[in-house]
């Protein structure tokens, strides 16, 4: 019993158990509706994790994440439909395109600090939305892009063929990319690079005084963050098979922001937990229709007032309080 507890408290074993359980989901869950919800949770988790990198760890309130999600999604769809590229090359190329756009936007906006950066990026998000709506020859305008094909099946050894036209195939693909994202994020956060991100977050003056190029550090964090959000945009495009300008709008930004803030800014697991809670909440509140956004706003305000560190941050400080009392 004791060894079992010890094993469970080990991060890695716990992680492996969670991975195994998630892998069982498509086998156990037969409801198409719930599979759909789970796939969306996986896709949006990737977006939330990537926002947390620039916002939570580097301290730059990027309010253009929906725009970058949209650029990744549109780029993937257009590369597949207009250039007949396969999903995987389109995924990578879209991420590169999004990164280049991110780099070009980051150069002027990251020079500014605090709320100015937030305003600058929000403006860019609005521009992306308008471009998606008005650049009809490229994006199809308000009608959107339709008929985006699912990724073609891949053959694994032993005659196993993974099809992505099925819900379970899409589930595993999204889960795989989520794990890749988590792995990359874990490695970054626990490295000298991640330490530089957090140093910039705490004090730009001190950080530049110890020889770290803060501008370069912010650019690296920003570009990595939009590279990853592009991956989730690609997944969304091929999963839903249809894109309209709304997917590149600032509404998306605020939804992802809510995932991160509710779950716990600057924590590894927080954004995923926030995504799960808000998505499930959103499904339950479908009857509210447009008033859902009001509910989101209310939740956001309450979290910022009562739990500024989000759920994970709240749990962590609770643990510290208990530990301090036991001492």
């Amino acid at each position, binding site marked *: 019993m004791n060894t079992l507890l010890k094993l469970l408290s080990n991060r890695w074993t716990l992680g492996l158990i969670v991975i195994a359980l998630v892998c069982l989901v498509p086998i156990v869950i037969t409801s198409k509706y719930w599979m759909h919800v789970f796939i969306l949770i996986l896709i949006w988790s990737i977006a939330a994790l990537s926002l947390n990198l620039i916002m939570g760890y580097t301290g730059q309130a990027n309010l253009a994440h929906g725009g970058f999600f949209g650029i990744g999604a549109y780029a993937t769809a257009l590369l597949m439909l207009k250039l007949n590229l396969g999903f995987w090359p389109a995924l990578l190329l879209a991420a590169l395109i999004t990164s280049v756009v991110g780099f070009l936007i980051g150069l002027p906006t990251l020079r500014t600090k605090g709320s100015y950066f937030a305003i600058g990026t929000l403006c860019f998000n609005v521009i992306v939305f308008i471009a998606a709506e008005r650049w009809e020859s490229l994006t199809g305008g308000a009608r959107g892009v339709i008929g985006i094909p699912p990724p073609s099946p891949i053959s694994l050894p032993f005659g196993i063929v993974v099809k992505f036209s099925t819900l379970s195939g899409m589930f595993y693909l999204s889960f795989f990319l989520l794990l890749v994202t988590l792995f*990359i994020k874990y*490695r*970054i956060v626990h*490295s*000298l*690079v*991640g*330490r*530089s991100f*957090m*140093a910039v977050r*705490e*004090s730009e*003056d*001190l*950080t*530049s*005084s*110890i*020889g*770290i*190029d*803060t501008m370069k550090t912010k650019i*690296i964090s920003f570009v*990595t963050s939009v590279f990853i959000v592009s991956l989730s945009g690609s997944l969304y495009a091929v999963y839903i098979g249809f894109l309209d300008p709304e997917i590149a709008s600032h509404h998306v930004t605020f939804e992802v922001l809510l995932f991160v803030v509710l779950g716990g800014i600057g924590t590894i697991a927080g954004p995923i937990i926030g995504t799960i809670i808000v998505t499930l909440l959103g499904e339950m509140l479908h009857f509210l229709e447009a008033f859902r956004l009001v509910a989101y706003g209310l939740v956001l305000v309450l979290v910022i007032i009562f739990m500024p560190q989000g759920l994970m941050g709240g749990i962590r400080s609770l643990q510290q309080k208990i530990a301090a009392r036991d001492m």
Partner: protein
Amino acid sequence: MLEVKNLSKHFGGLRAVDELSFKVEKGDILSIIGPNGSGKSTVFNLITGFHEPTEGRVLYLGEDITGLKPHVIARKGIARTFQHTTIYLQNTVQGNLIIAHRLRTNTGILGAIFRTSRHRQDEKQCLEKAEATADFIGLYSKRLLPASLLSQEEQKRLAIGIAIATEPQLLLLDEPMGGVTDKEMGPLMALIKKINEQGVTICLIEHKMGVVMSISNRVIVLNYGRKIAEGLPENVAKSKDVIEAYLGEDYHA
């Protein structure tokens, strides 16, 4: 090793630093003193690239470093502390010192993601430097504590530790004794002397005259951004201009 030539900084109509020239020689402990608002901190900000001078040059080891970015100047070997003790409060003591040595390593984000042997080597180098520095500043036993739990005096020492973990040749200390009790000043002064004995040239801004007199081999006095006296501590203390600047014209000795 450092030469400041006709340095001026104007903020609007205010001449914070006015045609200031001085030299720091290798091995010096040079104190810059002067009444509040006499431009001392601005001089540090000009040397380290936080402000761009209106006029004048800063030469370091014979090289013109005027107008370079702060991180470039830090890499050239000039470290500084800030007047308001500035450390990474959310990080541990060791974490503060690890990041301070980051500038002497150069693996990037791909090295971090793939955890290349180069990156592991860099991490090891930073950790070793951090542990050695924690020991040097007398915080080895507290190296795993969050910096926010340190006392004011310990935070001062950590701020100095962060600066020396960058391996500077010239260290600029902005009021290292500010906000510490008289009893705590002794160990801090000993630390500064110890750093100097390791071959680091030191330039400090200080208000506590006892400290200035006992620690420095040379003193520069600023008033309204101008240099009004320079020399050995005991001579400067007797200077008529200095007494006037500090106490007003009525206090002629």
